[in-house]
């Protein structure tokens, strides 16, 4: 059980959507934590010691004990700070749906968000964009089914699936710009998600965590520059 003198640290970096997830969860539960940001391009001793298997962020350190993997960290936060608003839905079937779609986002959909702007050919770019749009159509359907007329996947308040998907909105918006203004979220094709995205981004637990599109675009430039081989 959580107590007021708990020591809570989060190892991460501001641009990572996976890091945004536990930050939003901790905000929802009003838990104070120390945000230990990794230097871009290197991994701290603490990170390597805390996540020896994957060596990846985010890692939550709760009274010194490490918890890894963003969705697992969010479930942990929900279970430990149980007196705060619930993050996972109450019903077992709803929980299964939330976990299913969060895994879909991580495994099938988000990799295309990252791949699209780096695609080597116009053809490959087009294919990635199509995949993204197909995925968003599925997610629009899921939103209609799961939200049951309320604002969020989690109902009246943001929940597990809102956090899993919403953490990707920063990069989704940045990639739309990088692709020359392509509309992935579309008022005509995905009206529910367009409204949802605005409400999610404005939520008090999210506002200071989801980076401005401009900042992400600047960061993307640095990433792409580092990825290019040096010109001779």
């Amino acid at each position: 059980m959580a107590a007021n003198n708990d020591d809570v640290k989060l190892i991460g970096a501001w641009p990572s959507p996976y890091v945004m997830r536990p930050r939003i969860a901790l905000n929802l539960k009003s838990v104070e934590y120390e945000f230990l940001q990794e230097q871009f391009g290197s991994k701290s001793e603490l990170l390597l010691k805390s996540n020896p298997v994957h060596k990846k962020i985010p890692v939550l350190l709760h009274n010194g004990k490490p918890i890894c993997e963003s969705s697992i960290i969010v479930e942990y936060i929900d279970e430990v700070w149980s007196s705060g608003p619930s993050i996972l839905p109450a019903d077992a079937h709803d929980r299964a749906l939330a976990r299913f779609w969060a895994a879909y986002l991580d495994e099938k959909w988000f990799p295309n968000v990252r791949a699209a702007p780096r695609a080597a050919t116009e053809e490959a770019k087009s294919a990635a964009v199509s995949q993204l749009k197909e995925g968003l159509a599925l997610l629009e359907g899921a939103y209609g089914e799961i939200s049951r007329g309320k604002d969020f996947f989690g109902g009246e308040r943001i929940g597990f699936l809102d956090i899993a998907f919403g953490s990707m909105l920063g990069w989704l918006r940045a990639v739309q710009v990088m692709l020359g203004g392509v509309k992935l979220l579309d008022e005509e094709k995905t009206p529910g998600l367009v409204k949802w995205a605005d409400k999610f981004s404005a939520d008090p637990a999210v506002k200071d965590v989801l980076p401005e599109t401009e900042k992400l675009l600047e960061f993307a430039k640095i990433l792409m520059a580092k990825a290019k081989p040096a010109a001779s």
Partner: protein
Amino acid sequence: MADVKLLGTWPSPFSYRVILALKLKGIDYEYIEQDLSNKSPLLLQSNPVYKKIPVLIHGGNPISESMTILQYIDESWPETHPLLPADPYGRAVARFWIKFAEEKLSSASMIFRTSGEEQGKAVRETVEVMEILEEHAFGSLKEKGFFGGEKVNMVDLAYGVMGRWFDAIEECSGVKVIDPLKFPLFCGWAERFNEAPVIRDNLPGRKELVDFYKRRREMMLAAAAAASN
């Protein structure tokens, strides 16, 4: 009384994860064998996103992805044989290893699907995964234990495929991947798993598994040879 149906295929280890969970919990269910070369309307309707097995249908509601199904089963029938630790930290560690199994065990299936260079690569990848597991996961088990302590839990079920199925894959591929000298902790656990109550009565037979994978391997290698001619 809500009914429980399981859509699966024999001898899919993913199907078996769910079968073993249902058996451990003593839950009655109707098993419906699927033909993946001719997918049933029920399967397509129940898992429209991936069109894969296993799918659990409970009171008409479908759930897919084997480990999501196991979490659902554990939460819906909490009174018997808990499949996760009670404390949040224990659960977070269990979920970590479950996710690791979901992400890293697929290289093993490439071992029986391929030969030569490709097979060599699949073997090397599997050995790397085994080294991590031996050190970080199986290293934490007590000598007589399971991930669930004295009883099998969800993490044991996630890795259970690596016992009898790996054994069958190794035999029909002619490749030895799991060296008991290199992976003593894993091998000890695998023996205990195969002998555990309920598990031992509900695993597919070794001979049947070997025959199945032999036939599958012959078909796949023949198809690959035909495609490259």
